[in-house]
């Protein structure tokens, strides 16, 4: 992989707080890469080290082949950042912000297009202080894109948005990705990461505990498949001996089977053999959230 971001053994300490202990991952060009983890995991610190906003205490970091700290001004021209915690002067107007941030960009500015695209055209004369949370986030992303960056860092950009605004934002992030821009998306929302990211690093306590595609991460948790159906007859004790079944439980008229791999197919076949044809036979696959909790939980025990 010809990585645009290469992090190896990143470490960052704040006084006595070990914020990032040992973080390693690579991001391929054009990828939407997720950093997923609970609050305080070290995600923001990690991306700040990649953006050249913080000096790492250890490890090797390269972004677009540059050392983010030593070559930060060269890097800034080629990346865009929407920060988790940041603001603009209260009385600065939307168009002024874009105009200001476009001053130092080499490429011809696409300001008007950005205003349109990010739904800010009718807010161009509004002051920063008068924007809603969602509008501010969209303005920050527009500002991050004003220099037509090769990589965009988005840190918790849907936190605090209502569901409709989150969906709109997701579409826009997908649109950025489609243009070939690499996106690093920091989030603690599983649904967001599962929907948008091609690959995800799960971060916990300053460590990367897993890196993979959301599908493969979910497949790891596929041991936890559950097969469910409604049954009102006598107990089906023989289900325990069906291949790939681990455990069978019955609550009132609900049968719940835990198993792995092709457990669903085996259960369905066995039921047919016994002439049982439940119409609500279904399998519940773990989603990223289950897998996440499982991985984080394991790390916690270990």
């Amino acid at each position: 992989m010809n990585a645009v971001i290469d992090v190896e053994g990143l470490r960052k300490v704040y006084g006595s707080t070990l914020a990032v202990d040992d973080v390693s991952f690579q991001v391929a060009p054009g990828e939407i890469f997720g950093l997923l983890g609970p609050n305080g995991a070290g995600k923001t610190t990690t991306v700040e080290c990649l953006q050249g906003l913080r000096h790492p205490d250890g490890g090797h970091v390269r972004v677009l082949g540059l050392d983010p700290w030593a070559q930060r001004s060269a890097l800034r021209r080629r990346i865009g950042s929407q920060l988790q915690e940041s603001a603009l002067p209260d009385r600065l107007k939307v168009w002024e912000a874009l105009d200001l941030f476009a001053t130092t960009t080499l490429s011809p500015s696409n300001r008007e297009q950005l205003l349109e695209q990010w739904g800010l055209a009718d807010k161009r004369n509004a002051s920063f202080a008068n924007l809603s949370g969602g509008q501010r986030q969209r303005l920050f992303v527009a500002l991050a894109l004003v220099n037509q960056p090769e990589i965009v860092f988005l840190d918790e950009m849907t936190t605090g948005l209502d569901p409709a605004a989150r969906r709109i934002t997701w579409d826009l992030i997908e649109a950025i990705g489609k243009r070939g821009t690499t996106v690093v998306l920091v989030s603690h929302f599983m649904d967001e990461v599962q929907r948008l990211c091609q690959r995800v690093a799960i971060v916990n306590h300053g460590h990367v505990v897993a890196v993979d595609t959301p599908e493969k991460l979910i497949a790891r948790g596929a041991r936890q498949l559950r097969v469910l159906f409604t049954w009102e007859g006598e107990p089906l004790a023989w289900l325990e001996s069906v291949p790939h079944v681990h455990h069978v439980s019955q609550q009132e008229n609900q049968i719940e089977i835990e198993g792995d791999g092709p457990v669903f197919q085996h259960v369905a076949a066995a039921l047919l053999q016994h002439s049982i044809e439940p119409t609500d036979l279904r399998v519940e696959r773990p989603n990223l959230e289950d897998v996440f909790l499982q991985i984080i939980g394991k790390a916690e025990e270990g």
Partner: protein
Amino acid sequence: MRALTKTTWVELKLFTREPLTVLFTFAIPFVVLFVLGSVFGNAPPNPHVYRGVGTLNYYVPAYVALVVAAIGLIALPVHLAAYQERGVLRRFRASTIPVWSVFGAQIAATFVIEVLASAILVIVALAVYHTRSPQSLGEVIGAFFLGALTFGMIGLFLGLALPARAAQGAGVLLWFVMMQISGPGAPPEVLPTAILRVADATPLQHLVVLMQDAWFGFGWNNGEMLSLLGFLAGATALTIVFARRS
């Protein structure tokens, strides 16, 4: 350079959108001058006090220095510390705008405001109270420039080193003490030696004398210039340290 002019322009626009700040900045020196003028008038010079130039004549250049000090010590740090606290500086740092141009814009924008506020003060003093006009305009401009730069740099340091509330407190306190002892309050001839020695350690004292000497045609005061350059160098070093740290 384009970034610096653009950020400065934006800062000036932001300033005009704070009507209360604008009012205070431009009205206060004017009000003080008016009170002073009503109390003293422009009494004939007494060689033993007010450096021998007469009360109002003495105060006009001292107030110009005081305006520069007020904006540098209070307005600038409060503004910058708020940027720091609210994450505005982080926003700029993460962008392609060089962070030094944001700092430079603070000094450049306050410079423009100081010029305007001083001009109003001087025009009123000349027109209404017929005070002495500057004997050497070039030297007065030089003193003004050096003073604005020095206090601007001290303001940057305060704004970067302290949280917004503390920056405001420290700025007001420093300014108030200097106003009392460094020349714009009681004239040096009536102040006890101990206080004059403390005043010597304040940048405002040196700016007031440099400005007055230029104004009254006493000649360019190299000693005061060097003292101010010392403060400027110290404040610049501290600003660099704190700009790196944050």
